[in-house]
């Protein structure tokens, strides 16, 4: 039964499909569930038989045979019970994995703009907690079917077989216990909601006090926050006590109520033994069955509760359970002779009123490095993102004489490689971060980004783990790993948005030289505010705060644009200190 992969599910929004998917497990659950629950009564019956055998004074041999039979029988029954339990858990385990996979697939295939819109991170964590709750409910629902349904009927029928009158009257209080539990359910639910709400409120408050600790301290308000915290904790304490007492401590009470009929059982049952129509063994068997039935009932209320809770969770995750999607990877692009023609490109973020870039027109082609620069908020980064085609734009961006928007998302990703300010490293090895699963040789790109010496100093080499978000590497190292990734996955166009801010000037210059030499089959767009390197590249697009642009070679801009020349000279003067 070892699966090598978690398989997707069709129609994941229909809950019944999860049982259908786990056919084998569900079949086992049914077989062993029925097997166990119907044979479970044999345990108490045989225990009674053993007592009777002793009473009769049977021979050692006979008793030994009976005792061994008893043990073997229990072993067989418990084996089916084990199998039932195991497969119910496996069903839950697989279902949880399937649901998670489907949710992940849904999120990953949402459009980029949609993802920006919702607070997906928050929704996701909630959805994941809900998967656990939901699956737990599904599992309990599955076992409940047998344990509460089949087992209780089997016990009840056996008891009826022994004596109708005792069973009917003795068990009269069992439904009473169920009704009380049912009636209290809503109250308990309310208490537990109150407690949970308060608890998360307190966690939020604790977070606030700790996160803003310096703020409160500087303003001398710590005593006040402490007083408030004390009151809130008192409230939480009381709510916790209420919820917990009602949720966990009521069980013995239900049990007592269900057991009220035990008087009849003992009296009438005892009378029957005395009258000779029951043996002591049957009496003992009956007592065991009766107690077990009462215990099951007092548990059932809790079981119903968790099934109920899981329905709310199911409703919450359902929107994420959509058909499994795969990206269309049909590819119809030109391999070389890259040309880029931008005409009157205007761009505004969705929901924003103002244009961030306006009427940009430029052309560029393979083998060139184009610098893009401008003051703060002049739209440098935005231009880079617009060229990725993740957002809708106005005007025209033509790549190899076809409009960018007319390419599929996949085709665009195969033509344009992008690197933003954030290195976006995964908590994996250096090698995997660069190759992203492509198994290529990374020696050349590491040399291009001047990481070869860094790597030589690492004992694990390319298998070094970078830590969460690259935390184990320095800022400059992170930036260069990310650049290596971009270069390894190089496309016709490479867009680099300020990748060198954490890299020193000398290394930056070396990398630029490498780019010029080794990536002549690409068109490189380099966004930066450090102009020093711009004297070595082909052309520069200069964005002004008033949304006008200038486009030309470094030499041309030095002559034509006063501001460009001034900034260039000032930066030369300020040298390395410029940040």
């Amino acid at each position: 039964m070892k699966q090598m992969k978690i398989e997707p599910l069709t129609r994941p929004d229909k809950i019944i499909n999860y049982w259908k998917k786990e056919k084998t497990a569900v079949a086992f659950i049914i077989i062993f569930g029925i097997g166990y629950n119907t044979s479970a009564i044999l345990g108490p019956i045989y225990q009674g038989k053993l007592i009777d055998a002793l009473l009769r004074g049977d021979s050692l041999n006979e008793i030994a045979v009976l005792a061994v039979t008893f043990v073997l029988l229990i072993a067989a029954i418990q084996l089916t019970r084990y199998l039932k339990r195991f497969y119910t858990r496996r069903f839950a385990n697989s279902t949880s994995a399937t649901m998670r996979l489907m949710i992940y697939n849904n999120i990953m295939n949402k459009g980029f703009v949609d993802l920006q819109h919702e607070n997906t991170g928050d929704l996701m964590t909630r959805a994941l907690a809900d998967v656990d709750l939901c699956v737990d409910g599904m599992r309990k629902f599955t076992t409940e079917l047998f344990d509460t349904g089949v087992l209780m009927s089997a016990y009840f029928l056996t008891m009826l077989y022994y004596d109708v009158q005792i069973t009917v009257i003795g068990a009269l209080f069992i439904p009473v216990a169920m009704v009380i539990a049912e009636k209290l359910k809503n109250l308990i639910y309310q208490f537990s909601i109150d407690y949970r709400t308060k608890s998360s409120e307190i966690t939020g408050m604790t977070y606030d006090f700790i996160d803003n600790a310096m703020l409160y301290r500087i303003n001398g308000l710590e005593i006040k926050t402490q007083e408030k915290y004390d009151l809130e904790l008192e409230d939480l304490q009381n709510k916790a006590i209420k919820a917990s007492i009602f949720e966990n401590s009521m069980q013995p009470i239900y049990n007592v109520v269900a057991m009220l009929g035990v008087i009849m059982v003992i009296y009438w049952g005892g009378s029957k033994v005395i009258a000779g129509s029951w043996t002591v063994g049957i009496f003992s068997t009956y007592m065991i069955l009766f107690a077990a039935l009462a215990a099951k009932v007092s548990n059932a209320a809790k079981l119903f509760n968790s099934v109920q809770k899981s329905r709310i969770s199911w409703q919450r995750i359902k929107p994420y359970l959509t058909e499994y999607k795969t990206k269309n990877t049909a590819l119809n692009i030109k391999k070389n002779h890259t040309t880029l023609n931008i005409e009157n490109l205007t761009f505004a973020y969705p929901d924003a009123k103002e244009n961030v870039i306006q009427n940009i027109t430029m052309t560029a082609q393979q083998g060139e490095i184009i610098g893009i620069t401008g003051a703060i908020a002049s739209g440098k980064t935005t231009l880079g993102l617009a060229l990725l085609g993740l957002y809708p734009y106005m005007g025209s961006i033509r790549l190899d004489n076809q409009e960018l928007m007319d390419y599929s998302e996949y085709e665009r990703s195969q033509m344009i490689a992008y690197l933003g300010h954030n290195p976006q490293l995964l908590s994996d090895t250096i090698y995997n971060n660069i190759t992203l699963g492509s198994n290529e040789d990374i020696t050349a790109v590491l040399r291009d980004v001047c990481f070869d010496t860094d790597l030589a100093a690492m004992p694990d080499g390319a298998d070094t783990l970078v830590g969460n978000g690259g935390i184990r590497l320095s800022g400059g190292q992170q930036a260069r790993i990310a650049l290596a990734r971009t270069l390894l996955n190089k496309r016709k166009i490479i867009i680099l948005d300020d990748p060198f801010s954490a890299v020193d000037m000398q290394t930056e210059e070396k990398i630029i030289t490498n780019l010029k030499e080794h990536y002549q089959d690409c068109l490189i767009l380099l966004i930066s505010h450090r102009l020093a390197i711009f004297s070595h590249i082909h052309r520069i697009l200069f964005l002004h705060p008033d949304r006008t642009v200038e486009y030309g070679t470094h030499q041309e801009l030095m002559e034509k644009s006063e501001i460009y020349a001034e900034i260039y000279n000032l930066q030369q003067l300020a040298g390395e200190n410029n940040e």
Partner: protein
Amino acid sequence: MNNSLTKKSLYQVIQKNQGLIALLIFVVLGVVVISLIPPQILKIIIDNNLVPKNREGLMRWAIVYLIVLLFIGVFDFLKEAILTVLGQRVTKEIRMEMMVKLGKINSQFFSSHETGAVVSRFTNDVDAINTLFTSGVVGMVISSFKIIGIVISIWFFSYKLGLLTLLLLPIIYGIIRLFQKRMLQAQIKNRILVGQVNNHISESLNNMLMIKSYSKEKYMEQNYNRYLLDNFLTLDKVNFYDAVFSPLIQILRAIVIASIVILSSAQLNFLGMSLGMIAASIELISNLFEPVENLGMQLQNIQQAVSGVRRVNEFYMEPEEDGKNDKLTAAKIIPDRSAVRLKFDNVSFRYETGTDILKNINLTLNPLEKVTFVGRTGVGKSTLFKLIMGTLQPTEGVISINGIDVCAIPNREKRRIFGYVEQRFHFIKGTVAEQISLQDEGITRGKIEEALRFVGMMEYIESLENSLDTEVTSDSLFSQGQQQLLAIARAIVTDPPLLLLDEITANLDSITEERVISVLQKASSAHTVLSISHRLSSMIASDSVVILENGRVKNAGSPEVLLQDDDWFSSQVALERLTWH
């Protein structure tokens, strides 16, 4: 558990709840004793009524049986309830102590500890202590008593069976522990993998731009699938132990019962017990498994909770701020707001980790002077402000206001002396008015309105649903610029003589920036103003500029002089005039 906070809190709760503790002891003993009675009644019924076929007393024993069950129910309920109450009181006590500690803890703690990790000490770790107390220690006592009670009961029936039970105990315990340990190992392994699975999701969301732009959705999903599969396989193992454990116990129990019956057969009669005793012994031995099983779990709970206890106690041992002089008041330190003299006397600062931040800073500020500190990021400008406010202590040297060491100023007075505005506005939980007053009842509504009017925010706030009483539920109620204006209102509402402005326009667009600057310009006339800026164009008109480099004062003087003398400063100013950075 030999360390202070947990012990102290437990002790205090015990002190305050002596009655409840006494009741708990009574209830625990009651539960242990009463739960031994039903098998005894069964024994009596079988031996006195059923076997000799005698009806007399049967009804009485049936009633007694029910009454005993009632008592068990009530005592069980009471036990659970009292433990819950005590557990929650301990939790509350510890949390409160921790909060008080937080108020005294040295400020360096906050720079070296992530908020999330500290919050988890307040929540998860304290909960772990609760578990330790209720299901750990007290639970263990109960389980042990139950086991002892059962062994004694059986001993009364037959000392031989009592001896056998004693022999059996370590065997049962050994088997159970073996399972529990295996299971715990599998669980720990699984928990790590669950972390990996969850982390992959947040990582995917954080790196969405990269994933989308390279079309690596498939790759990411494959990785996720692999993590899911690993998780599935380890959980399958946990499930195996979980599923097999209870059936195994049942089989063990059947073997014990079968043995008792064989030993009691007429031919052997090894144990010499009546039929009632045999039936009762079977019942008692069946009941023995539960406390033994619990004992193992409780031991495990304690082991797991110990790390939580340790973390909480560690937190409690963190160094505290000292040197406060509670007699100082703002009025005593600054009798005349136009005569505030701030002085740095050979101040150096180094973090506990040993990194030097500031070295030998000597500065004297004139009353009502406007000073701007400039320098590259990471040069220690923000640290300097924390030193001024006394939230960090200099490693060497003294910072004083009118001759009084700032570290001696009690926190409650600080708001009357310093108005501190940071780069980012920190919302607190509460209404708009409370964002300004910080829930200080000493600040009147009139003052709040006045401050908001001063920064020009009153009109916008009045347009909100409940005006000043609107609950701030998300950051998006105010734009970045508005947030900074609120920050200024918060700082000036107590009318402090000193304003400290830390990169307040770093996140603003130029139009908003202008507005913020003009508000500050207006406020600055009656204040001594210290500001930090790495964008010089956005600083308010300064009397002097201090350039920091490598932890030292590289140059200081009026901006006019520095423009002439300092190349770095002049080119920086020019670049920023062009809004370049």
